Each structure stands twice: as structure tokens, then as C-alpha cells.
């Protein structure tokens, strides 16, 4: 316990790093994932912009990348990290890796929720002469917003988990803290406190997601 108090400033820094990694990657993977997920939705046969070639290419890429365990994915993209971020360690490199890794999961979640949007409302918008891009932004996404927000809460939880793994490769954050100051020194209170903080973080994220989704679904 004294160890923990002695390292309190490192602990605060670790929380900051985790929040940085999670929020940056939530936004970045969200943007990439929405683009990919929308593409997967609207290019499928019979949809707004049906295009077999685009659908097949995006689908195959997502299927190849998504099942790769994050810890291996991070190792595999080290050259890319060096090229883009300039380093393979630290929160910025980790956030970049997280963004890429999560984007493909987001793509599937976005696809699942948008495919479920009733074709009738899309047809109604088409019948009014709306452009497909306009329908995507003003009908497809708003109609699927409630489940989409729940999907993003799920991704948030996943990112907290993945950011802890990023600690293992020098990403910093709470995972790194728990390993370096906790388990490697057999200091279990530090591990438990860190885990407790992660649980609170996850609860807050899930709670916020549920509240927003409820608002979007009006129930």
C-alpha cells in the first residue's frame, strides 16, 4: 500500500494515458468503422448503392483483420507505427494501433445495426427523390442510432480492455501500471486497485452509452 501511495503520481498519469488512448481510438476507430460499416451495408445486393465488387473487397479485408488477436496485431503493425507515429512505444503509438485494430470491429457492429434498419423507410426517402448519400446521413444512420450507440458502448469497453494489453508493449496506461508496479513486484493491492479503477471506467462508459441510447430510442 505504501508502494501505491509512493507511486500515486504515476498512477494518475496512467489513468490519464488510458483515457487518452481510449478516447482517441474511440473517435478514430468510430470514424473509420462507420465509413467501412456503412460501405458494407449500402453496397450489399439490393441496397442503396449495391456494388458487388466494393462489398466483396471490404468484406474480405474486414474478415481478415478482425479475427487477429490485438496483441499480435500490434506486433504486426510495428513497421507502420514506426513510419507514421515515429515510435512503437508510448500512448500515441498505442492509440494509433488501437484505432486501427478496433475500426474493423466497429465496422461489423455498424453493419449489423444498419442492415437491420427497415428497408421501407429507405424506399420512402428514395421515392422522395433523395440522393443515396443524403439518405445514408439523414435516414439510415439516424434510424439505426439507438442500437449504434449501444454498439459503441460495447466498443468502449473493448477499447479499455485492449488499451490494457497495449501496456504490455510499452503503451503506458493502467495496464502497464498494473504490470510494472503490481504483478511484477508481487504487489497485489496495486493490481486490485487498478482493476477496480478499470471496472469503474467501464461502468461509467456503459452507463453513459445506455443513457444516450435510451434517449435516441425514446424508451
Amino acid at each position, binding site marked *: 500500500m505504501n508502494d501505491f501511495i509512493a507511486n500515486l503520481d504515476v498512477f494518475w498519469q496512467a489513468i490519464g494515458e488510458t483515457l487518452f488512448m481510449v478516447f482517441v481510438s474511440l473517435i478514430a476507430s468510430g470514424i473509420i468503422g462507420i465509413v467501412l460499416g456503412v460501405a458494407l451495408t449500402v453496397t450489399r445486393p439490393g441496397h442503396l448503392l449495391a456494388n458487388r465488387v466494393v462489398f466483396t473487397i471490404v468484406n474480405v479485408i474486414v474478415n481478415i483483420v478482425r479475427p487477429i488477436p490485438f496483441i499480435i496485431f500490434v506486433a504486426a503493425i510495428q513497421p507502420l507505427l514506426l513510419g507514421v507515429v515515429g515510435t512503437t512505444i508510448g500512448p500515441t503509438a498505442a492509440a494509433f494501433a488501437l484505432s486501427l485494430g478496433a475500426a474493423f470491429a466497429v465496422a461489423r457492429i455498424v453493419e449489423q445495426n444498419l442492415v437491420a434498419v*427497415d428497408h*421501407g*423507410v429507405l*424506399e*420512402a*426517402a*428514395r*421515392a*422522395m*427523390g*433523395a*440522393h443515396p448519400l*443524403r439518405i445514408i446521413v*439523414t*435516414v439510415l444512420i*439516424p*434510424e439505426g*442510432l439507438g442500437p449504434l450507440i449501444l454498439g459503441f458502448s460495447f466498443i468502449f469497453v473493448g477499447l479499455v480492455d485492449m488499451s490494457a494489453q497495449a501496456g504490455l508493449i510499452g503503451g503506458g496506461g493502467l495496464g502497464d501500471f498494473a504490470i510494472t508496479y503490481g504483478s511484477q513486484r508481487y504487489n497485489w493491492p496495486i493490481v486490485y486497485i487498478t482493476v477496480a479503477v478499470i471496472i469503474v471506467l467501464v461502468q461509467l462508459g456503459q452507463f453513459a452509452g445506455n443513457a444516450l441510447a435510451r434517449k*435516441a430510442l*425514446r424508451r
Partner: protein
Amino acid sequence: MSALVRLENVSRHYDTASGRVTAVDDVSIEVEEGEILGVIGYSGAGKSTLVRLVNALELPSSGRVFVGDDELTALPERDRRRVRRTIGMIFQQFNLFHSRTVAGNVAYPLKVAGVPAAERDRRVAQLLHFVGLLDKAHAHPEQLSGGQKQRVGIARALATQPRLLLADEATSALDPETTADVLALLKRVNQEFGLTIIVITHEMEAIRAIADRVAVMDSGRVVEHGDVYDVFARPSTRAAERFVRTVLHDRPSAATLARLAEAHDGRLVTVPVQDSPGFTSTVARILGEHRVGSTIVFGGISELQNRSIGALTYELTGADADIDAALAALDAQGIPSITEQVDAAPGGSPNGTAPNGSAPTEEVAR
């Protein structure tokens, strides 16, 4: 030519895993400016595909589609969108945007059409007032009843002041009373704004209530079309006949006929009612002149487009030769009749021609 919509030899097929499906098969029809055309058919007859060809939500595999001066089948998609803005559409499942309020739903097509916000608000209020839902402007669709949802659908479809309204099974999800309200609203739209309407339905009652002309679809083809009264009075195809029978219960069924034959010894003859003054009196007079007794044993007369429609089944008694002569005389007067053929019901006595020339003392129907 005042046809607003013209389909020329239009076909639409889909290639599915189990082979080619022809949804619309070589259809040519015209819809006149200001009329209500009803398209009736069973599910799978191709009517929903047909209506989607009119606003190019579907494109034909072959044939040409014209709306006004635009040949939709020759236009690029960009121009088709422009044409769609002049065509309203309502749906069986209403297809309202659940992410928007009632007012937001009605405003949407106006936004798409680039109408400025102030003008948009004015128009939305006007439309909601027209369909009687001004107080629901800020409600969300799931707070409305089915009839209210369809009224929002109609307001939304009318927002851009279209010249044509497509109603795809618009009343099929509604109860009979609400159906009547919605049909009355469509009729009002047609009469007040002169809006041309194409109504797709499987309910002959909807056709009877508002359509001027009807096209009957069966297996992708328009098998019969014409004025509603003519098709109801003289359906010439089996498909049309079956739809007409769902609303006009003026002909005895086979079972009824068998029972009637059991109870009546005379010859059973059905005469379709014609919309002329003193029609039944004329029939009675001619029968009487030929010493034929008659009793009305089945039938009904109702009104369609302010004209009488229906059929009467008579039991005719008298000498065979007299009855034959009477029917020939009716025919000569332009009053055709159908001698009912009774299937020999199991256990029932075969009841062919009238047995003996009992004196024509039966009361004559008026």
C-alpha cells in the same frame, strides 16, 4: 394526349437462384390526368413491382415508362430523382421516419426539394391541418394509431405538391373503419387538387370506393382493365370475376344453388341488373307476356359510381317452351340471362328442366 403515366410493353424479371421470375409481363397501360386508377391482384401478381416502375424505384427489364413528358427509362438517375420529387408515394407499412417527429416527417421531402425553412414550416402546418393532425406535429410516429400514421404518410407524400400519388396497399394494414377514412381522404385529395392517383390493392372494396378505372393483374399481366362499373358489371376474366365476387354477393354459390334447387321446382335463371329505369319491371313484364311465373329467390342490387349494379336469381315456372321463348325475348331486349346449372348434389334429386306446366300463378317480382 392527356395521359400522365404511360407504360409501353413493360416487363420486369428477376434472376434468382431458382431461376427467372417474371414480376411484370408485357404491361401497357395509361393513366389519365386527374383519374384514380385501381390496380388489383393477389399478392405476387406483380402490382407492387408495377407501381415501383412508375417512379423508377425499379427499372423495367424491357419496355418504356413515361411520366408527363419524361421518359424515365431513358433518363439518367440524377434526372429520375428530379421526377420522383413530383410523385408522392404512400405505403402499406407507412414507412415513417422514427427518428423524426410528425412535422419532421412531413418536412423531409421539402428539405430534399430545397424548400427554404420558413416556407417549409408554413407548408408543414398547412398539410397537417389538411389531414387533421396539427395537434400531433411534435409527436413521434410510434405514438400514433395506424390511421393517424397513414394520414402523416399522406401529408408527407403531398408535401411537394406532386402531380401523381402512388398508394401501395395503403389501407391493407388498417381496420375497415380506418380504411374507409383513409380512402375518403384520398378521394378528397383527388377531387380538391385534381391529383392523379394509382391505388395498388388486393381489396376490391378499395377499388369500389374510390377508383374510376381498374386494372386487374394476374401473374404479372394486366388481364383486364376498364371503367370500374364495366368491370364490376361484366368481368370477362376469371381473376376479375373472383375479385368482383368478393364485394358483390349477388350470385348464389354452388352450395346455395344446390339448396335453392332443392326448394324450388322451377328453372333457376340469373339476370344481371342493368342500370336503366324500370329494369325489374321490364323483366317481369316480358316474363308475364310469355305466361312464365317468376319468383326472386336470390340476389342483390347495390350502387356503384351512382349506378345500379347486381344480379337477381329467379325461379321461373311454366312450360319449357314458354320459358325458352321468354328468355329469348329478354335477350332480344338486350337483357342477357344465365340459366344456372345445378351440380347433382350428393343425395339431392337432379333438378333439370321444369317438370310440368303448372299454371303461371306465381307472384311476379317487382
